[in-house]
């Protein structure tokens, strides 16, 4: 490991200036070249991001207006149209998913915290990570089998269940990571005052970490708001204002997907406007929350 570092060490002081100077100069130049390449690589890596933002800002902005949020998509040839039903549908889906994934995810995160250090807790964290790695299209199929095939119809409930399955491991991880930051002495102080375990867990540990937990939940909800694949065979999509949880509903990512592949410029412009909303509302919120979380945990 260290041989190459020592390779340039002179045997005798006299040899240094005469024989090793070119080699030392080469080492310094090589260092600058490689690290310069790393910086250029960073620029190259961020180029697509700039292209995406620029493209959405130019093509998407043209379709942004009040109609975007108040109208439903219009047939080809009809002026105007918007993504209002998709925005409402996405809010419904994420809201329903939150009803399931927030209590379950936070509860499971608290369970990990209460059993921290045990084999069971680390096994559950591992399983949550593995669940997080399951392709979201496969999650969609599972939700379809459980809730669409059995009921015989696509529904917002099935879509929300699929989204909740995506979010639960994220909420679990965020919760248990934030709770780990709460000083143990605080919890012990609660117990010393005679609090039962449940009270120390909820009103001392969880309450102390509530901002961090809420931020982690926000990141998870932002992530599922942009998910498309789990909704293909569950929420399915709709061209109308349909907000019955028992029936199919539109969703913003589904609309972007369908309209981007259409051959009509007006629909493609709407797709770009929808993508702009997703980037600003979903990715923007996610990054802001993530930064806040990093500050809370003292990492940034």
């Amino acid at each position, binding site marked *: *490991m*260290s041989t*190459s*570092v020592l390779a340039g*060490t002179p045997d005798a002081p006299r040899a240094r200036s005469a024989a090793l100077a070119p080699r030392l100069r080469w*080492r*310094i130049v*090589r*260092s600058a070249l*490689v*690290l310069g390449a*790393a*910086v*250029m690589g*960073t620029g190259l*890596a*961020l180029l*697509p*991001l700039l292209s*995406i933002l620029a493209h959405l800002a130019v093509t998407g902005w043209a379709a942004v207006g009040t109609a975007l949020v108040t109208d439903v998509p219009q047939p080809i040839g009809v002026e105007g149209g918007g993504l209002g039903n998709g925005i409402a549908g996405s809010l419904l889906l994420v809201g329903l998913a939150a009803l399931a994934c927030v209590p379950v*995810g936070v509860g499971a995160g608290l*369970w*990990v915290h209460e059993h921290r250090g045990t084999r069971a807790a680390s096994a*559950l964290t591992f399983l*949550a*990570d*593995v*669940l*997080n*790695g*399951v*392709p*979201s*299209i*496969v*999650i969609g*199929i*599972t939700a379809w089998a459980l809730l669409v095939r059995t009921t015989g119809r696509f529904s917002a409930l099935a879509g929300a269940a699929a989204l909740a*399955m995506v979010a*639960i491991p994220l909420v*679990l991880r965020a919760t248990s990571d934030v709770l780990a930051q709460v000083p143990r002495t605080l919890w012990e102080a609660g117990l010393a005052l005679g609090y*039962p*375990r*449940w009270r120390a867990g909820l009103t001392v540990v969880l309450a102390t970490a509530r901002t961090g937990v809420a931020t982690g939940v926000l990141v998870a909800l932002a992530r599922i708001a942009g*998910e*498309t*694949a789990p909704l*293909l065979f569950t929420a399915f999509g709709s061209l109308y204002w349909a907000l019955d949880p028992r029936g199919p509903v539109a969703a913003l*990512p589904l609309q*972007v997907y369908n309209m*981007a*592949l259409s051959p009509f410029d007006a629909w493609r412009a709407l797709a770009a406007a929808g*993508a702009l909303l997703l*980037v600003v509302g*979903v*990715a923007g919120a*996610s*990054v802001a929350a993530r*930064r806040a979380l990093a500050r809370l945990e003292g990492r*940034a």
Partner: protein
Amino acid sequence: MRRGPADRTYFALLAACALVVPLLLGAVVAYAVHGASPLLADGGAASLVGSTWSPSRGLYGALPAIAGTLVTSLLALLIAAPLGLGVAITVAELAPPGTRGPLGALVDLLAAIPSVVFGLWGVLVLVPWLRDPVMPFLRDTLGLGALPFFRGVAYGPSVLAAALVLAIMVLPYVAAVSREVIATVPVPMREAALAVGATRWEMLRDVVLPAARTGLVGGLLLGLGRALGETMAVTMVIGNRHALSASLFSPGYTLASVIANEFGEARDERHLAALLSLALVLLAVTLVVNAAARLLVRRAVAA
């Protein structure tokens, strides 16, 4: 410690929440196995080994989709690995302290952009750009058309387009994990290397990167897991054709894209079972890759 009834309820509720995770994972695996079983039971997995996929003729050769999944993901990783490492080194070691926050935020933003937005950008920007001038340039101007990988008509939607979109999508994951494990290498080790006269690059190459090796490999595997299962962006740019071709210019298919496109229209049981067999293959591969990645990253960060 003595536990009252309230405490018992508290722990029972938490345990119920915790149990949801293994139950969901079990449901995912169980349904994939169950759904695939009609096809796997009659004809066996052998019916998937073939290059013709034609539901109307009852042929479900999955080799093009499997090959497409592997080629796009590995190519994406090949592109994203050096760039991601470059980003990690830049953000963790080189950038002036004031610019590290904004740089990190940009990388985070790249990770937070929904898959369908990458797909839209792929359709509207990347694919037209590949069709003209990139593909003709590679094929004719550089003369790479002599190789089997850069042959054929430059349609635009292609294995190459899918690999590029995937590379952009997994890059922030590779960069984030790499940055994290690089940061775990103790400062005294770096100082020791610099003190014996190493340049900054020599310090990274001989001390920091070897010490972070396990975690770096874990980060790459995590990126691979993402790429293998990525659906929307790939479906939108890969061209969706069940065909085996050595050329990166030709349209292809991936396991996830086949499911996305055909699952909603699969009427007969055998077609459905074939699609679920694809899902099972995809699930098995991603589970193994992700489990390995998590174990490596965990060991690296804990060490």
